[in-house]
Structure formats: C-alpha cells, structure tokens
C-alpha cells in the first residue's frame, strides 16, 4: 500500500507541539518521532491528550507552537489534498455511515487522488480492492456499514485509510470497541502494514496490547510526555502510577517475553493513607491469603511471617510479591528464620495476627510479635481454641496488647491507616 521508501531516519518528527483551547494547555511541548516501518503507541489516561496529539499530527488542529514534519515537510503548510495523500486518520468514533456500503466508504479514501467530477478509474478500484483485502473485509464490500460488526467496521475504516495510500497512518484507539480476538487480529494487520514500510502512530488504551505490538511507546499525561522509549522502559510501575494513579504489577512472560500488566484496584480511602503503611501478617494455613491480597490491593506494603512450603498463604505471598520468611514445613522455625522474622516485625507499622493455629513448630512466630510496634487482630477464634501447645501460646498471646481487633476484612482495611496514624501522633 505504501510507497516503501527505504530510508532510515525519521519519517515523522513532532517537535515542541503546543495546543491550547481557552488558555487550557492540552499539549505542552510534546515531542514525538517515528521512523519508517515503526509503530508508535500513544498511551496515557483519559484526557491525557492522545487524541489531540493525533489530530495535531494529522494537521487537523491549529497548533500554537511547535512543528510537525513529515519527511521534512511541515504538515500545516501542506494543502489539504497533499496532506490527505500522505497522512490517513482513523478516528476513535466510527462515523455513522448513513447507508453507504463498505466499498463506497473505502472508495471515499480515493478522494485526494481523484479530480472533481472524475469518476473512479481502474487504478482507484484496484487500490480499493487491495485495501479491502489487506484488512480482511473484501467479502463485505457490498454490505452497508450498519449491517457490519464493530470489528468489520473498523476494518472498513482502516481500508479507507489505506486507500489514501498514506505514508503515515494515525489510529485513535482503534480497538476500544473490539473483543480480545479482534483486537489482536487488528494489530496483526497493522503490524503487517508497518513491517511493509508504513509508519503508524496509534493511541492505545490497553497497555498490554500497546506493549505487545508497538516498537516504542510515548506515555502522555495532562498533555506532557511522561516517558518515551521501548515498551519495557516506559511501562514501569512508577511511570504507570505517575500517569494513571494506579499501582500496577508489571511482569514479563518468561516464555514469550510479552509484558503482562495487572492493575491493582485503587484503595477505597484514597492514596497516601494506605501507601507507605507497612503491615506485617502473622498467618499460615490459608488464614492470611485473602487478607494479604486485599491489603496489597488497597496499597499497603505487606510482609508476612514464617510460612512453610506448600502453605496456601505462602503461594499467595509469592504471587503478590510479598516478602515473607520461608521455612521448611514441619521443621519448626530455626534461629536464622526467627532473626529475619524479628526484623520484619520491627520494621512494620502494625502487625496483624490471623486465625492461625499454633503448635510447637510455629510458636516462635507468636513470640516475635512482642517486638511489633503495635499489634492488631484479624480473628474470630479465641486463642484457646487454636492453642495446641498446652497453654504456652495462650500465655504468649496474653502478653500482646492489641490496639484493635476486626472480624471483617473491609473494616480492617478501612481502620488500619487510622490506628497507625493515631499512634504515630502519640509518639511525636
């Protein structure tokens, strides 16, 4: 589709782009470069300026400052026809097509190549046919857009863009209405075009998709470029938290190398309270797994006490990246493990004791709790019911001075920051 210019170097170069509406700065000195055969992903939260930047690159906006160069030519200086032959834009909201067939819509992409009152030539029909086939909607040519599914319609609009025979393809959240299969299919098609020499810039909501298909990413927030570079360098938990205000776990699939992102739900009581609070869990036998997950999700920094191999709580700690004290099952807590546990207990702001049962093997973990700055209970069971040490656990338990006790996880998560805050004030 594209005139495969085998040139190294920059095809698109946007420098210091500034766009303002009523004194609100929607783009603030944005830079963006794209080479021949590159797919650049624009990521960022809603309202970050992704759509605005695409429109600015496409010459659809009157920017206040800066320049957008396509192969060295300033886009704003091109006349509309020249621009339409060089840059194609697939908008976020597919327009209502008012009864046009797919073929008719795609043929509209030939507009800049055709003279006024000229009817379509053989070359136009061939380009359109190829475009329809490239995006896999050739068999739908005669159907009106209303009768097509979202994915098929998206294919038609990309085909229309290809019919313009552009050097640069701008895609504004092209897959936001598609299911995961069609999302992947769509990006495979775009990837194919890009590998064939097209340059593309796509605003993409789904960070995993962006990481998987794009050569480089630009992370925007409030009209400013927060980070730019290879997907792995841009999509760090820090950058994601800075731009989106959410905590994310970024891992890379060991087999495929594909980046995996899972977003933690933001805490109900807002950032700043849970974040920075270190909670140490003394648990085991599955009594702490759920609590551990919810604490992480709410933004607490969580550590855990000694956990034997094969323990459900240990698996939970592993998957959540929670630091814990690994011990051999049934072998008791040796001195080294106990030392480590003591350190974690001392470092936390609050230690939480679950319904874990105590035998001689894990008694030392209860002993270590005495070192905690404050202790809270997340338990219903009286200690006597889970004391299998002939009263020694009960005696250790009696020495603790719990500042609070909760039977429900929700109230615990809501209450924890407060008790930490209160006692900090007292200390001062």
């Amino acid at each position: 589709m594209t005139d495969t210019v085998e040139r190294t170097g920059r095809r698109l170069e946007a420098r210091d782009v500034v766009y303002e509406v009523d004194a609100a700065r929607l783009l603030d000195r944005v830079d963006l470069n794209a080479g021949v055969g590159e797919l650049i992903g624009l990521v960022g939260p809603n309202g970050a300026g992704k759509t605005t930047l695409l429109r600015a690159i496409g010459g659809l906006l009157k920017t206040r400052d800066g320049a957008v160069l396509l192969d060295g030519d300033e886009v704003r200086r091109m006349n509309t026809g020249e621009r339409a032959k060089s840059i194609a834009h697939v908008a976020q909201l597919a327009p209502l097509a008012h009864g046009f067939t797919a073929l008719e819509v795609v043929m509209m992409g030939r507009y800049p190549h055709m003279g006024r009152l000229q009817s379509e030539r053989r070359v136009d029909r061939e380009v359109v046919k190829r475009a329809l086939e490239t995006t896999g909607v050739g068999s739908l040519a005669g159907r009106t857009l209303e009768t097509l599914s979202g994915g098929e319609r998206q294919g038609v609009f990309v085909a229309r863009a290809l019919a313009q025979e552009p050097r640069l393809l701008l895609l504004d959240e092209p897959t936001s209405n598609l299911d995961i299969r069609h999302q992947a299919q769509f990006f495979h098609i775009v990837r194919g075009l890009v590998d064939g020499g097209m340059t593309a810039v796509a605003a993409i909501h789904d960070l995993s998709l962006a990481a998987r298909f794009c050569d480089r990413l630009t992370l925007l927030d409030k009209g400013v470029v927060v980070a730019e570079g290879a997907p792995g360098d841009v999509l760090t938990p820090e950058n994601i938290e800075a731009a989106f205000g959410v905590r994310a776990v970024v891992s890379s699939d060991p087999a495929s190398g594909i980046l995996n992102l899972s977003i933690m739900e933001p805490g109900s009581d807002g950032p700043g309270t849970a974040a920075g609070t270190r909670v140490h869990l003394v648990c085991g036998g599955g009594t702490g797994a759920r609590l551990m997950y919810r604490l992480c999700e709410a933004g607490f920094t969580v550590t855990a006490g000694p956990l034997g191999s094969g323990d459900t709580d240990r698996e939970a700690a592993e998957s959540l990246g929670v630091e814990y004290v690994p011990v051999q099952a049934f072998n008791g807590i040796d001195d080294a493990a106990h030392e480590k546990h003591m350190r974690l207990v001392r470092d936390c702001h609050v230690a939480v004791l679950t319904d874990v049962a105590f035998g001689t093997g894990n008694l030392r973990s209860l002993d270590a709790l005495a070192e905690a700055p404050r202790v809270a209970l997340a338990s219903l069971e009286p200690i006597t019911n889970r004391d299998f040490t002939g009263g020694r656990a009960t005696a250790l338990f009696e020495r603790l001075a719990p500042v609070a006790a909760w039977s429900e996880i929700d109230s615990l998560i809501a209450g924890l920051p407060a008790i930490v805050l209160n006692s900090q004030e007292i200390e001062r």
Partner: protein
Amino acid sequence: MPPSALPAMTPAKHRWGFLFQTRNRPNSRPDRAAGRRVHEFPDSEAPETLGGDPSGNMALALVTRLRPPREAALGTRLAAGAGVLIVLLAAIMLVALSTGPLDIPVTHVVAIIVEPTGIHLADYDRTEELVVKQIRLPRIVVGALVGMALGVAGAAMQALFRNPLADPGTIGVASGGAAAAVVAIATGASTLFFLALPLFALAGAIGTAFLVYAIAIASGRFSIATLILAGVAVSAFMGALISLVIIAVPEQGTLRGILFWLAGGLDSRSWDHVWLSGPLILIGGGVIIAFARDLNLLMMGDDDAGSMGVHVRVMRPVLLTAAALVTGVAVAVSGMIAFVGLIVPHMLRLIFGPDNRVLVPLSALGGAVFVVLADEIARTVISPAELRVGIITSFIGAPFFLFLLLRHNRRVTSL
C-alpha cells in the same frame, strides 16, 4: 455492460440482477447479504418480473423496481436514474402543456415547441400558441426550476447536517423569505415596483440565512447542532411574525393574498420569473452538484472529511450558501412549497443509495418532476378553479412517502 466496481467481490450475475433480490451468497438472508437500505419484498410477492404488482400502482412499481444495482458504476446509476426522470419530466410537461381550460392536443404542443427550429409538424391556431408559450410554459418552467432548487437544497442540507430531518428550510431560509413577503404584502410594498414581491422574499430568505449562520459562528466554536438550533429559533420567530401580521391585517383581500402566498403556488408565473430565478438556481445547483463528492465526505464528520482532503472550513459555507441561495430564489418565485426538499432526496435515496454524486443531480430532476406533477394536479383537479401547489405536494406527497417508508421500514433510522 460497464465493468462493475469490483467484479470479483460482487458477483452480480447480469445487468438487471437487481430485479432478483437474491445474491450468490449462501447462508445469509438476501436482504442482509445485499445490505441495502432499499426495500425488501415480502415473501408473498417475490418479484420475478416487472408485472403483477398487487398494489396495482404502476408508477410505484416502476420507481421501486427500476433500481440499478448498487454495485453498478456511478455513471451507470446516474445515467439510468437521470434517463428515467428526464423522460418522466418531459412526459409530464407535455401533458401539463396540453391540459387546462383550453384543451390543446399534444401534437399541437409539440409543433408549437419545435416550430422555432424551422420544423413544421402541424397546424395550430394563434390562441393555442399564446396559451402554450406565454401562460403554460413559463409556469411549468418555473415549477421545474423551483423543484430542482428544493430537491438539490434538500439533499445538500441532509448531508451537511447529517440529519434526515433537514430540509431546505432548516436554517430559516423559507420562513425568512415568507416573513419578508408577508410583510411586503401587508404594507403594500409588494406593489411598489416590478417583481417587488419576489425580490423582497429573496432578500428576506438570504438575509435570514446569513443571520442564522452569523449566530451559529458567533459562539466561537461552530457546531452543526448550534446551526440547526439557531435555524429553529429564527424560524419560530419568523413564524410568529407572520402570524402577527395575519392577525393585524384588517383587509380581507390582503389577508387572502398572504394566505395564498404562504401555501405556495405557481399561478400567473411569467417569463420574468423564469429569468429571475433560472440563472441563480442553475448556478447554485451547479455548485452543489460539483461539490457532491465533498458532501459525501462531510457526512463522515469534519475530522474524517478533513483528513481525506476536504477543506471543511471553505466547503461548508460554500455549500450552505449555495443551498440557501437556491432555496431563497425558489421561495421568492413560488412561495412556500412544502415537503419537496424533505422527501424527494429520501425517496431517491431509497432507490439509488446515499452517494451524493448520484443523489444530488437526481434530486434536482426528481424535485422538478414532483413539483410539475403536483402543479398539474393542482390546476386540473377542480378545474376551472385551482388548488395551491403547496397543498398538493403535502397532500399527495406525505401519504406516498409514508407508503414508501413503511415498505422500506428497515431503513427508517438512517439517512
């Protein structure tokens, strides 16, 4: 047969494949496979041939079945539609020229028309020549011009506003022209000089269009919704002004003149009206036809149109001005002839599809056919008295359009 647009993808069997609603597409319902806005035939009357329409309405059968295939090249569709409409228009014109209080045989009408070329076909008397040339022909030509103007403007407005309810009056042109005319009649200004009434109406129409456009862009950010709402508001104001004048006018004769004018009519139109309206309507209509391609792209939204190479900021005012101009001229010479601009493009869209390169020129012809036919009915139905043509267009046009709409009820929601 001209090459269909993409033969490999759209296996139309033969040129008249559209007569058969099915396509070579297994496992899908024909209407869905064809994906057309055009009508479906109920199973009971699957059409094998042109004949046998149970409704017995041959005109409708002709209109709905002589539908060129959508995959036919643009030129084919346009030529087919234009051919049918031109023949229809010529036939109706001939009939209209021969009917009236004085019956003139069609042969005489043809003879009178071709006489200036030096060909003598038949003998006719002087009265017949006068009636045809000085009374009926100018009236019919004005009717055709008005119909063209309303059809073209209606199609353009529907595309520009991306709204199926848009018509030539959407931005207040018709009501503005009417208000100016009514005020001119009531104050007697309409008799001040030759062609005063149409000129007042034209000034009112164009003035209102500019007022509405100025209001819409005054907000700083232009939007179609603002334009439509400004048009609605100004139209309401003009409507109130008309009502006020009607109530305030003391004299019966003047009142009758106003009401006559409001219903729209083509009586006693002369060649002067043709010379006044013809050039402006042809220029304005020509501009819209020349930019029909841009109308297609503008229907996709401003950003899409802009990125495909349409100069939106130039194109939209140009097209709006042209549509307002032809509407204003039509209102000036014929009063308010309702409904033409709304339904003619819709009817043709049902048959020929939404492509404005086909739709706009055919709407010009279709509008002409519709108005000339309505005027013929208005002149003859209670002869020797006359009905107003504006009454006929709504009275016959509305039920006919509703009938079409119900037949094609799957596509009511979209343009």
